[in-house]
């Protein structure tokens, strides 16, 4: 099983970047949701 | 058609007059290009004995970097003197402005090339009179000007304007740089036309494609 390290490294990088982006999107969604809620509140006043 | 051509000449001539009156700009760009030439020749001559192989690359690095600095001027001049809005108020087709500016940019780079190239040929002990090299240079500079004028207009309204143009411009003109270097090789060693032909074709295709695309797309960059 030579070079197993390389194989694992390649797949690890792929998942790291893809999941990183998914997390980034999650965080953005939460921030946007907060902003929308704040806007709604201030508009009701 | 004639009227449009006259307007292009007007834009072009205005820029030429401005540049002639403020000669410091072109002289500085020229000095910069010469410096790049010398430094790279120096660096590569120390590193390797095969200077003939790297010679075309050195010439084109100098012309490319000198060119980018020069292209920045095309619209930076307008922005600095708050002339951009004035230019845009002129009731002319945006494409006319593009072609006038592009002609100016091309001429500017050609002027730099006219000085840098003989110096380069002398440094490498090559024959000075090489008409085929002139063809390669003209084709490549048209390519540079076509893309560079479009991106110059874009970069001028962006923060970090001075670095924006180079990073926009350089990746896109990679085919021109590769073709120019590959076409220059046979010229310097007196090789046959056949070796150059494909590269000239690529440059011609690039020039045509980008002149058309830039003409179509320029109005979107300068609209307000």
């Amino acid at each position, binding site marked *: 099983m030579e070079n197993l390290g390389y194989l694992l490294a390649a*797949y690890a990088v792929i998942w790291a970047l893809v999941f990183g982006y998914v997390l980034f999107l999650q965080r953005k969604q939460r921030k946007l949701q907060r902003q929308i809620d704040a806007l709604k509140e*201030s508009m009701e006043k | 058609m004639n009227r449009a051509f006259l307007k292009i000449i007007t834009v072009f001539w205005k820029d030429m007059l401005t540049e002639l009156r403020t000669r410091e700009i072109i002289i500085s760009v020229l000095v910069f290009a010469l410096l790049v030439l010398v430094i790279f020749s120096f660096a590569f001559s120390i590193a390797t004995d095969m200077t003939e192989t790297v010679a075309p690359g050195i010439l084109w690095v100098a012309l490319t970097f000198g060119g980018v600095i020069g292209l920045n001027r095309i619209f930076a001049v307008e922005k600095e003197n708050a002339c951009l809005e004035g230019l845009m108020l002129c009731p002319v087709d945006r494409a006319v402005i593009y072609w006038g500016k592009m002609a100016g940019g091309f001429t500017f780079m050609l002027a730099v090339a006219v000085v840098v190239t003989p110096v380069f040929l002398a440094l490498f002990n090559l024959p000075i009179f090489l008409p085929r090299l002139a063809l390669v240079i003209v084709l490549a500079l048209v390519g540079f000007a076509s893309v560079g004028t479009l991106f110059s207009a874009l970069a001028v309204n962006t*923060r970090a304007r001075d670095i924006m143009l180079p990073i926009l411009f350089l990746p896109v003109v990679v085919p021109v740089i590769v073709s120019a270097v590959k076409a220059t090789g046979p010229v310097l060693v007196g090789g046959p036309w056949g070796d150059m032909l494909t590269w000239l074709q690529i440059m011609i295709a690039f020039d045509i494609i980008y002149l058309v695309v830039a003409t179509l797309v320029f109005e979107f*960059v300068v609209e307000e």
Partner: protein
Amino acid sequence: MNSNHTLRDSILWGLGFALMIAALAMVFVYVPTEKHGGIVQRIFYFHVPVAWVAFLAFFVTFISSVLYLWKRAIKWDAVACASAEIGVIFTTLVLITGPIWAKPAWGIWWTWDARLTTSLVLWLIYVVYLLVRSLAADPARGARYGAVIGIVGFIDVPIVFLTVNLWRTQHPTTIIFEGGLTTTMLITLLVCIAAFTVLYVILVIRSAGLKTMEAEVRRLRIMKAE
């Protein structure tokens, strides 16, 4: 979100998940080790789909850029930008997994072959795309400039590929992937391509949706300030 969207999203997620599991199973269990490449060769089954998705993403950016300049609807700009972001991520993956595969397989990290070089130039062009958008004076300008770059950049891709190809065929130090694909290899590859394409669709819909929301929030804030 109306119910149409939720149904569509569920289908996409379900399909994507199933395809990914199938892909993993096929790459690590089903497909036999390729005789020349050893087990490292299995990187190929993710490297190629990732490259395909990157190209697809930039093509989508190109189309959306044209549509945005034509129709000026925010959603086209959102798709263009989201797709470019994803394209950059996937191109980064190509540039990383390529060398990781090449080093044990052929002994070198890098070679100036047509595909790898074009990927590098592509990466540079679209990173600048993202930079210009973030450094533009205002979002509307950023959208316009982005659209121009999205169009000009994509047109360059075939030219770059052709040029580098011609350059490299004069210097055949190219790495040639020996041997064709057996049927098992082909099926595995296709499943992987399908899996990554669905992943791309999910990501681009999500990201573009968020960007549209952002634009809406900005608009509301401006309205409120008046």
